[in-house]
């Protein structure tokens, strides 16, 4: 069994809502509300959920790009929220992130070579002379050509920019990469290129990924385990085959049945959820899903269900299971 | 708003503290004896440290008392009240005229981007912004008042005129024409460019396409759906206009000898009439803040997304 690389315990991230002339805090958006999970070396953990469910915020808080409200995150055994600025800086190259928007994630005023190489220079990881070699190595691994390093981001298409973003993370030789919706902004035919690239790189270097997406089929393809988030909380987490074959949480079931499948002969029974996702600023009491749940009982609106292991590493938070 | 006003008052006070001489210099009668001077100093609290003087000044200002103008030998409030309305009439006329001209040509420019009309209006607007008002004013006087004598050279009414009612209004309008042109040229330019860029932004929006897809007439699409949205940022600058309505256009008023606040302020500057200057500037700062407030409120009124709760 591979070793645990990342351990997240009861992580919470609340954004204050300010209002009025004096900017008093009138409430909180509970973007991440008590999330716990572990990630092993070389593993890909997928996170799915609809917009506003807090999957992206979870990813960014784990990297301490945002400050936490509560809880802890252990990376290689160290609580990253207890690190000093200097310690944090030195650990940064080991945990990287790839972004959704291939346009705003690259500085338009820098050449591709500078974008990829600058962290190597700034951290002094390799000597000045070696920087170019490392950049070229990374860029080739990501499917770009050496002459591309002298070009600027605006000369590239979305898929190529995403490759540049991957090369920027890759060049630092990280152990853990948060992939924050890396293929959502891309065309279908380009998506598969990037997904394949991420898989290949994992095989070669043994990265751990936290793969965030709203696309259930992509997440299923790339992940080993998958977690489902709803309104800031994990509602279900299991091995991907288990989760997709045997979903326990009613939300997961609805989500899976809502995904259109490219097969016109297939007739499925659908669960169409009623209503909209409630606002994370004012989540429902008890189980947050009870307002839309077709199976809800009295207890659901009163008590928060525990996120627990129902056997074989299948975690679920539902009173009915 | 209050802290900003306090900050403003401190800065105004400091500027006048920095000026050589004090309030007495302006009032001084050369024949005044040393004792009388000292007495007067004490009376005006000039012998005390700056912070105490500031306290007295603010106390008076809060009571509406800006002190006495050196030059006019009258309370500052009264002097301002006499002239400020003349500025107001001129500026208001110019404001209305600018809105009437600028918004339509802004819209035309935007809906026909890169057409000849667009270039024409754009160049026209740039001329308006680039033309120094004093030079333009002088040119107008030379051409229309001196050379062909179509309009009067200066003033607000014919000297010695006792006309009342409509005749008076006509006389004032006759005198107002040239300064109005100068003032309006500058403000049309700014407002038109603002409307144009706001409109350009709006006509690219999806909801304009939706309106077209509904089968609405192009006129309805532009003047109802698009313009209503494009004017949202524009109305906020109406609020910013408030201080401008009262401050007058100093140079234009001076050139045409329009008896507004502008020439008075120039006079005050040249005669170092500090109480009057402080009064005018305090008032304008207050009006600026009030204008911002009005802008915020109108914004909320015209944009349903920002309703005051």
């Amino acid at each position, binding site marked *: 069994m591979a070793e645990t690389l990342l351990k997240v315990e009861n992580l919470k991230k609340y954004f204050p809502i300010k209002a009025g002339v004096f900017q008093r805090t009138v409430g909180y958006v509970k973007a991440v509300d008590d999330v716990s999970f572990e990630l092993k070396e070389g593993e890909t953990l997928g996170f799915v959920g609809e917009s506003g469910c807090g999957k992206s915020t979870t990813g960014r808080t784990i990297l301490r790009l945002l400050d936490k409200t509560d809880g802890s995150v252990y990376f290689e055994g160290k609580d990253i929220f207890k690190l000093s600025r200097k310690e944090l800086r030195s650990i940064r190259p080991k945990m990287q992130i790839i972004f959704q928007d291939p346009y705003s994630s690259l500085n338009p005023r820098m050449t591709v070579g500078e974008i990829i190489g600058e962290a190597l220079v700034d951290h002094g990881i390799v000597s000045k002379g070696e920087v170019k070699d490392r950049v070229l190595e990374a860029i080739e691994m990501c499917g770009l050509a050496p002459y591309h390093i002298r070009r600027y981001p605006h000369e590239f298409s979305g898929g190529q920019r995403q490759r540049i973003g991957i090369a920027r993370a890759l060049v630092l030789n990280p152990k853990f990469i948060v992939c924050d919706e890396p293929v959502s902004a891309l065309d279908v035919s380009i998506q598969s290129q990037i997904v394949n690239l991420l898989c290949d790189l994992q095989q070669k270097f043994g990265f751990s990924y936290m793969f965030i997406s709203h696309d259930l089929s992509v997440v299923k393809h790339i992940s080993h385990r998958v977690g489902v988030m709803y309104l800031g909380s994990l509602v279900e987490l299991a091995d991907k085959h288990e989760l997709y074959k045997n979903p326990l949480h009613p939300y997961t079931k609805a989500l899976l049945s809502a995904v259109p499948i490219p097969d016109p002969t297939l007739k499925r029974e659908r669960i169409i959820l009623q209503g909209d996702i409630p606002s994370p600023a004012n989540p429902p009491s008890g189980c947050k899903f009870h307002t839309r749940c077709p199976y809800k009982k009295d207890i659901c609106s009163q008590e928060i269900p525990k996120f627990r292991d129902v056997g074989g590493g299948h975690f679920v938070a539902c009173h009915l299971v | 708003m209050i802290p900003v006003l306090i900050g403003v008052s401190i800065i105004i006070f400091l500027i006048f503290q920095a000026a050589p001489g004090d309030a007495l210099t302006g009032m001084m009668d050369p024949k005044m004896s040393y004792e009388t001077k000292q007495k007067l100093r004490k009376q005006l609290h000039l012998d005390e440290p700056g912070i105490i003087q500031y306290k007295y000044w603010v106390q008076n200002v809060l009571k509406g008392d800006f002190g006495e103008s050196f030059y006019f030998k009258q309370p500052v409030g009264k002097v301002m009240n006499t002239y400020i309305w003349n500025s107001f009439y001129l500026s208001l006329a110019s404001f209305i005229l600018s809105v009437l001209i600028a918004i339509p040509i802004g819209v035309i420019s935007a809906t026909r981007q890169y057409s000849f009309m667009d270039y024409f209006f754009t160049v026209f607007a740039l001329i308006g912004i680039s033309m120094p008002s004093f030079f333009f004013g002088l040119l107008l006087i030379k051409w229309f008042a001196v050379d062909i004598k179509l309009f009067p050279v200066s003033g607000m009414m014919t000297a010695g005129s006792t006309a009342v009612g409509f005749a008076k209004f006509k006389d004032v309008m006759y005198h107002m024409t040239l300064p109005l042109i100068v003032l309006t040229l500058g403000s049309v330019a700014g407002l038109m460019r603002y409307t144009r860029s706001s409109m350009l932004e709006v006509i690219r929006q999806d909801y304009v396409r939706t309106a077209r897809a509904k089968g609405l007439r192009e006129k309805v699409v532009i003047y109802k759906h698009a313009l209503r949205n494009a004017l949202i940022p524009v109305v906020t600058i109406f609020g910013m206009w408030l201080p401008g309505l009262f401050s007058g256009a100093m140079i234009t008023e001076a050139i045409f000898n329009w008896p507004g606040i502008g020439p008075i302020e120039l006079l005050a500057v040249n005669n170092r009439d500090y109480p009057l200057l402080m009064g005018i500037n305090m008032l304008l*700062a207050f009006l600026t803040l009030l204008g911002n407030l009005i802008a915020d409120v109108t914004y909320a009124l015209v944009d349903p997304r920002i309703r005051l709760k």
Partner: protein
Amino acid sequence: MAELKKNTNKNVELKGAKKEDIMSPWKVVKHRLRRNKLAMVGLYTLLFMIILAIFGPIVQKYVFGITMEKIDLYNISAPPSLKHPLGTDEVGRDILTRLMYGGRISLTVGIVAVSISVVIGSIIGGISGYYGGVVDGIIMRLVDIFMCFPFFPLLLMLAAVLSDYKVDPKYRIYFVMIIIGILSWTGLARIVRGQILSLREQEFMQAAEALGLRDRRKIFRHLLPNTFASIIVSATLGIGSAILSESALSYLGLGVTPPYPSWGQMVQVATDYYVMQYEYWKWIPPGVCIFLTVMAINLFGDGLRDALDPKLKR
């Protein structure tokens, strides 16, 4: 890995682009600017004015022996002639020469005043945007206070206070530059702050944070270069309005004072109706000069703004 490499090469071929036409962001802007005829007219007019202001007086002095102070007693208030192409003023000084000197002064005032306001504005706006929170709150209130003053009346008062200190005309010019500069930094500070606030939300800044880059690098390599575009545009347009402010101030006798000529001050003679009506050569050329220069700057600045706007593509 071998398979990966193969895939790579395929991509390279597919792109099929020529290797040597790298369009840096600045080249793109230059390219777009060149296509804007109005902007080019502005640029050439401006260059012409600058060249005239720099070299004109030198030519006049060494070729024709005319300086701005030289009095031609035989030609007082003379209309344009071969000797004095734009005539002479009331004491017999050559108008053309004074106009060129005035250009030097007006342009210098514009450029220096804007440099001052750009330095103050971008530093303060940058600090405000980068640190945010309390620092931002305080600075923005300060900007609010400054913005409360009607610009011109305040300028006038400061200029008046300056006069009371009886500053030598030679140094007065510098004070005028400083005053205009200090009074006009607020707009730019707001722009820079707004830019930085929106840049901070961009994912490449998040990436810079995730890469663990030093603050210095984040500020100088990532933030500042991306604010240049808006700083340059507002500085260019700022020069135009600084020249207008200076000329108005000088016209009122509170800016640049004799014996140093400035365009605004030269127009002043027209307050005399006789001069206005009959001696047009004394005041129309300097007025036209102000207008042309400011117009040229605005045309160019406008084109620059369009060229730098990534949204605007025909």
